[in-house]
């Protein structure tokens, strides 16, 4: 049997199985730590840093750090909250996020985090990068303007032969998600839908579909992201 460890988050005593990652352990204790690049069932990558917490005073990513006995974790510390806000704002200015015209609006995790942290305006100047929409695939549309390079699609989506469908293209600030043209052609409806669901933002879309739920009925219209965990 797994050994149980005791630790605290913002002074609240918690318990979890040893070796569990801090985000998952926190969730079991009804505490929400925001995530973006992390996806249930997929090996954590620790790339977006939104889940940063202080572990015994040191900043660590909660999605890649396992809990240990007597850990003192801070999730609501001012420095942490400021850091998370800055990450959210950077993601908004780094791409082209025209939420009013976005199919994912209301169901988007990045937007939901901005709502949760009450972002009124990013403190950084908008970069308006030139990015393209790739509509060559028969089922999926890829809008690079909204991609936050979380790699969730790369890590979570494989075809029945275990081949990856998505991959990184180019380098540095030109890096983008590529959809394998050959394997992509044979994409099943199911896998296309899964890709869209895996993407936290509106960078992957099903062709010909969008704006299906009216405003007010979408996932994050009335409920803050993470409130389901907190109200468990």
């Amino acid at each position, binding site marked *: 049997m797994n050994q149980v460890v005791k630790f605290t988050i913002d002074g609240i005593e918690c318990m979890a199985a040893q070796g569990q990652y801090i985000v998952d352990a926190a969730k079991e204790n009804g505490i929400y730590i925001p995530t973006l690049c992390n996806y249930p069932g997929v090996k954590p990558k620790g790339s977006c840093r939104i889940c940063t917490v202080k572990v015994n005073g040191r900043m660590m990513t909660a999605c890649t750090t396992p809990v240990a006995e007597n850990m003192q974790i801070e999730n609501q510390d001012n420095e942490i909250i400021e850091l998370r806000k800055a990450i959210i704002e950077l993601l*908004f200015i780094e791409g*082209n996020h*025209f*939420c*009013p*015209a*976005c199919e994912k*609006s*209301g169901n988007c995790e990045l*937007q939901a985090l*901005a*709502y949760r942290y*009450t*972002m*009124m*305006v990013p403190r950084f*100047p*908008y970069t*308006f*990068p*030139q*990015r393209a929409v790739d509509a060559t695939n028969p089922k999926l549309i890829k809008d690079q303007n909204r991609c936050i390079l979380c790699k969730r699609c790369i890590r979570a989506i494989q075809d029945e032969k275990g081949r990856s469908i998505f991959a990184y293209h180019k380098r540095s600030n030109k890096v983008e998600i590529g959809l394998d043209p050959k394997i992509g052609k044979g994409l099943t409806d199911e896998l296309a839908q899964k890709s869209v669901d895996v993407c936290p933002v509106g960078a992957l879309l099903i062709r010909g579909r969008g704006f299906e739920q009216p*405003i007010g009925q979408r996932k994050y*219209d*009335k*409920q*803050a992201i993470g409130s389901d965990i907190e109200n468990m």
Partner: protein
Amino acid sequence: MSKPIVATTSLAGCFGCHMSVLDIDERILELIDLVDFDKSPVNDIKKFSRTCDIGLIEGGCCNSENVHVLKDFREHCKILVSVGECAIMGGLPAMRNGIPLRECLEEAYLNGPTVQNNKLKLIPNDPEIPILLDKVYPCHEIVKMDYHLPGCPPRADLIWEALIALVTGGEMKLPYEVVKFD
């Protein structure tokens, strides 16, 4: 004591934010008890007649006239508020920011599917017409903006709460449902 004075304008916007101001419904009666309006499309006053306390700006800056009006507002208003996504980040007009200006104009006046009867292949270019900027700019990248109210348009409740807080000096209530980007 004289009432606080409010001015409003729509730059590169669609007037949706002004519509949202009207969406405060019967509270508009309360509002006119609380404040006076100066330059605004609501009362059709075209020029500032005095220094204002609050300026509400809808829309970003897409041309020289927008920049001129925005600077005029900064000069005449003690507090300037970016109202809506266009004022905050350029909004839908800024979707042209990735396209060279010439291409935009050629699409609009020469090559677009709805272009008719432009046999001389003219792109309007009269000194009377405000000159387009290379891209659409958020207001806070042109002048200092004091507050930002997101939304497309911002919910009427958000505009109302902000105005009341500014006028009364009270704390602003920000329930989860009112801060939205669409």
